[in-house]
């Protein structure tokens, strides 16, 4: 049980949610938006947070959307990951979401929670960054819609009182060839040592990685390294060389800990990037690995 005095609110509209949040802040209370609640309960049990007001977003229609809207795929932040997988509107995102935790926990983990949470992996953000997704935010100043990469750098950076409502991806990007690879130390439900997502975006291959460093990295941080070695067709580096260049580019950012050494993580990273590039080479079948 979460000790102390807690109020749980379930607003029906975004404006109610924002007002409730502002009122709690005004009273000096520790307030959290949530959808899945898994991280809040875990952190509260550990004493790392002491929530006093919880605002459940699952009754707000905009946060639960899943479908196409004018040539764009729209997904609400309060969708659970299994709902994202079952809708399968963006196969790379489905592949990434399907590997987070286990099937039962994915009935609670939300898309927005996975992106905005404190755990450093945030794997579902990788396909969205690769697809140049847009984020729709709502806060005290109303709506904001902007490229996700502008509010995500290692973690989601929102204005005070703001919440992630939904994300939008072009239908073209959602249907693009893709690769997803993930390696863990133990079982499939473990946290990743390395996750690699590749998407054949309009502007070229887009790479996202998680697990190798202490934070996810998207095309903005990796594109230069990925494209290094691409000269004219006679001098173009192959998948192995390009993977090696990306690994070298990250250098000391690749972490070592009790789960795996930096050397091993770097090896896995290079292996998965090489495999992904090979799969997305012309004539190869794209898709996910195990």
């Amino acid at each position, binding site marked *: *049980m*979460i*000790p*102390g*005095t*807690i*109020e*749980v*609110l*379930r*607003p*029906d509209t975004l*404006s*109610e949610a924002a*007002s*409730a949040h502002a*009122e*709690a802040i005004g009273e000096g209370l520790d307030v959290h938006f949530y959808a899945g*609640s*898994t991280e809040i*309960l*875990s952190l*509260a*049990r550990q004493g790392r947070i002491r929530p006093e007001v*919880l*605002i*459940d977003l699952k*009754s707000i229609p905009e946060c639960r959307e899943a479908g196409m809207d004018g040539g764009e795929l729209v997904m609400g932040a309060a969708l659970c990951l*299994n709902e994202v997988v079952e809708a399968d509107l963006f196969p790379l995102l489905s592949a990434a979401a399907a590997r987070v*935790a*286990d*099937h*039962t*926990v994915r*009935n*609670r983990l939300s898309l927005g929670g996975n992106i905005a949470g404190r755990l450093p992996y945030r794997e579902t953000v990788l396909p969205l960054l690769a697809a140049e997704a847009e984020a729709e935010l709502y806060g005290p100043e109303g709506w904001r819609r902007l490229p996700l990469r502008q509010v995500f750098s290692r973690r989601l950076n929102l204005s005070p009182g703001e919440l992630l409502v939904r994300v939008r991806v072009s239908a073209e990007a959602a249907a693009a060839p893709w690769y997803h690879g993930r390696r863990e130390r133990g*079982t*499939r*439900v473990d946290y990743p040592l390395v996750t690699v997502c590749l998407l054949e975006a309009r502007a070229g291959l887009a790479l996202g990685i998680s697990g190798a460093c202490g934070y996810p990295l998207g095309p903005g941080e990796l594109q230069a390294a990925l494209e290094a070695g691409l000269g004219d067709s006679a001098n173009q580096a192959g998948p192995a060389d390009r993977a090696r260049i990306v690994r070298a580019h990250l250098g000391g950012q690749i972490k070592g800990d009790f789960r795996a050494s930096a050397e091993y993580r770097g090896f896995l990273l290079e292996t998965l990037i090489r495999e992904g590039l090979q799969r997305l080479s012309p004539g190869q079948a794209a898709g996910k690995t195990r």
Partner: protein
Amino acid sequence: MVHPGETLLEMLRERLGLLGAKRGCENGDCGACTVLLGGRPVKACLVPAVEADGAVVLTVEGLRDERLRQAFLEQGGFQCGFCTAGFLVNAFALLQAHPDPGDEEIRLWLEANLCRCTGYEGIERAVRSAAPGVASLKIEVAERGIEDEEHADGSLDGACRCGMGRGAGRGDPGGRAASR
């Protein structure tokens, strides 16, 4: 009435006397607390009790006389039994969603539950052997409404339709917020 900080697991066990869902890790790892919430398997230790407001929660007690239980008995799907309730509920949900699951589908769903005794083969055999018939059987489910502050006694059996509208959350009838 529940405390807003209570988990679904705590409510089921301590207020409703439904002891089938077990306290294991209480961290969402072991699956011993698995129940169905709105038809989906969830780990009750990771669900706020207030979210059962108006929902149907199916616990292992609601799977009485279920063919799946018999399959676990016949196929050696348990030893100490601590994890079994969670496996039964999750397996039941699997077979509702996929009446004839393949091996990969079975592993995908059941990797949410840990067993330290059996090595999992008996459990997987039980799920496979139950597959052809489970979806077509009716479940004997005992539904009991919870009114105001009246709680079930320890003999309560079966699923619980949790009428928790009153008192869910502090000073917030129905658990829904009007503009604060």
